[in-house]
């Protein structure tokens, strides 16, 4: 078990390094220049000076080596757009905001998704099932940038329960979290429904039935734990992408999260920010996947984590 964890951490670091390298290569393949898009037309000598300052005049392999050296000391560089902000600062300020919204969205999606899916499996082919399935399909079909303005209109403007936008109190986080939760909730509900239907056909459910337990008790104590495993493997990557910020929702609600930098840095060819946000995202993803794998062991006692094979 301990050997497994050590090996696992080693592969996690290797994965992050591989992602960083690939991102670096792809990033350098994009034509353009961080300073070319500047509205002021800079004289050629100034441009050369600026490039030299950020080592952009050196050959690409050298730039790569320099970047990796900094990365090892957790220095992700300075944003090329605003000299005063380091990438570390950007992540430090934006990540917690994104994480709060993402975490709340994830909790809403997981709890209600599991309940909705279980209830519709339990009432298979009855009205509640069709109703829940319809809700789920609507949830999957409506993109969150459509839903968000509606939420703002009804729950912030018509009925001023929550602030329209911006960041500050917990109340500010409610609408964005809900807007962000709907699609994952619907997907989890559909996963849960099919997984639960499969579990309800199992022999041990009949055993539970023969004990005289009520059907809700059967689903609660025998169904959910067995049905949730496939759902958990889907929740992992979803969780990682939710807590690292989403561009659209943060844009609509004017939230200072990290999602904005992710997208804008690419347009601006802000190389250190592109690298920084990508590495941050991959680190979170890799870590969450590790946690998910560990949690399988808790959910299903038959799964043993070993250092052999693929670790399952």
């Amino acid at each position, binding site marked *: 078990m301990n050997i497994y964890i050590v090996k696992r951490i080693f592969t996690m670091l290797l994965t992050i390094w591989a992602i960083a390298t690939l991102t670096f290569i792809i990033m350098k393949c994009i034509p353009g220049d961080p300073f070319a898009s500047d509205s002021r037309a800079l004289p050629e000598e100034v441009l050369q000076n600026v490039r030299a300052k950020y080592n952009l005049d050196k050959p690409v392999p050298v730039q790569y080596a320099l970047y990796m050296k900094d990365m090892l000391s957790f220095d992700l560089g300075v944003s090329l757009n605003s000299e005063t902000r380091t990438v570390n600062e950007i992540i430090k300020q934006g990540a917690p905001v994104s994480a709060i919204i993402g975490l709340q969205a994830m909790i809403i999606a997981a709890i209600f998704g599991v309940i909705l899916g279980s209830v519709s499996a339990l009432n298979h082919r009855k009205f509640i099932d069709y109703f829940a399935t319809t809700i789920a399909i609507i949830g999957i079909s409506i993109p969150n940038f459509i839903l968000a303005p509606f939420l703002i209109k009804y729950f912030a403007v018509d009925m001023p329960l929550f602030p329209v936008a911006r960041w500050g109190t917990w109340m500010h986080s409610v609408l964005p979290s809900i807007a962000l939760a709907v699609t994952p909730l619907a997907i989890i509900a559909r996963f849960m429904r099919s997984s639960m239907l499969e579990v309800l056909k199992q*022999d*041990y459910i*009949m055993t*539970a*039935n*023969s*004990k*005289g337990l009520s059907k809700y008790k059967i689903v609660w*104590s025998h169904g959910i734990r*067995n049905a949730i495993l496939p759902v958990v493997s889907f929740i992992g990557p979803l969780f990682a992408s939710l807590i690292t910020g989403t561009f659209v929702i943060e844009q609509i609600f004017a939230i200072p999260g990290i999602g904005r930098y992710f997208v804008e840095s690419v347009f601006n060819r802000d190389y250190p920010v592109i690298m920084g946000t990508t590495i941050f995202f991959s680190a979170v993803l890799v870590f969450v996947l590790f946690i998910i794998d560990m949690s399988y062991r808790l959910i299903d006692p038959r799964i043993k984590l070993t250092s052999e094979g693929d670790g399952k």
Partner: protein
Amino acid sequence: MLEVNHLDVVFRTYGGEVKAVRDVSFHVDHGEIVAIVGESGSGKSVTVKTIAGLMQSENAEIRNGNVLLNGTDLLKMTEKELRKVKGSTMTMVFQDSMTSLNPTMKVGKQIEESIKEHTGLSKSERKDKVITILKQVGIPNPELRAEQYPHEFSGGMRQRVMIAIALACNPELLIADEPTTALDVTIQAQILDLLKGLQANYNTSIILITHDLGVVAETAKKVIVMYAGMVVEKAPVDQIFKHPGHPYTEGLINSMPDVSTDKNERLIPIEGSPPDLFSPPTGCPFVSRCKYAMEVCEHHIPPEFEVKYNHFSRCWLHDERAGVNHFNANKEGEETDQK
């Protein structure tokens, strides 16, 4: 104690209706072990699952009949009333203990669950009870074993756990659906001994489903033979082995391997295959495979003939119009013996 009268169960499928159980009647007395035998698809499992209230699937329909447990009709009970009976008065042991136990729940908890549902015992009392039951079914180290998961048990031990679950609330009737089929022979014998011990010590009635006639001879007092959804014969166990009253039963007994015969001797199969239950034959279901078949067998389902005291057979050969034959000749012989 348990009485099943004229039970009819139908499955609705896309291909039409499957008449899985037709006009099944039998009764089980207190402390009696009754075996139901028959080949796969003969309706044994459907019959007992109907009795145990486990047939609420959407495509099964109980057309007719009643199931009286101590005088109350289980089929007329509300779900809530039935839940009180299930797991306490009437419990069930299933064939495959690997899939019948929840893989993600500790064994002790799976036993405790029905105690919690049906008694008012406190948590520590329940824990003690679980340990006592595990001991009773012969599981060593019960304190440790209760905290383990099913995959940490061997097949025989898992089946003991299944029996422990069934025993948790001291049932009056235990239904065992092929409890030994998935086990090897030595373990089979242990499990059967365990069941027999329960019946002897606690006067529990047991319905034992099996397709192993050896098991029947070993344990049961009364035998019910099912074929194509019908009870073709029911009789006390010694009677059925010595003087089977139905050609199908006779075929089953003849097809059993016999240790006393020469190794090279081939087993005697029953030729043909069971009828299609989408459209069962209008007459006797066994007619196409029966070597004694008569004209009447083609067109009319035979009624139950009482061959001897407590020995019933659905076969036209017992009708007096069939004349003297193999079956009633036997009977006559028996009677002359007694004289």
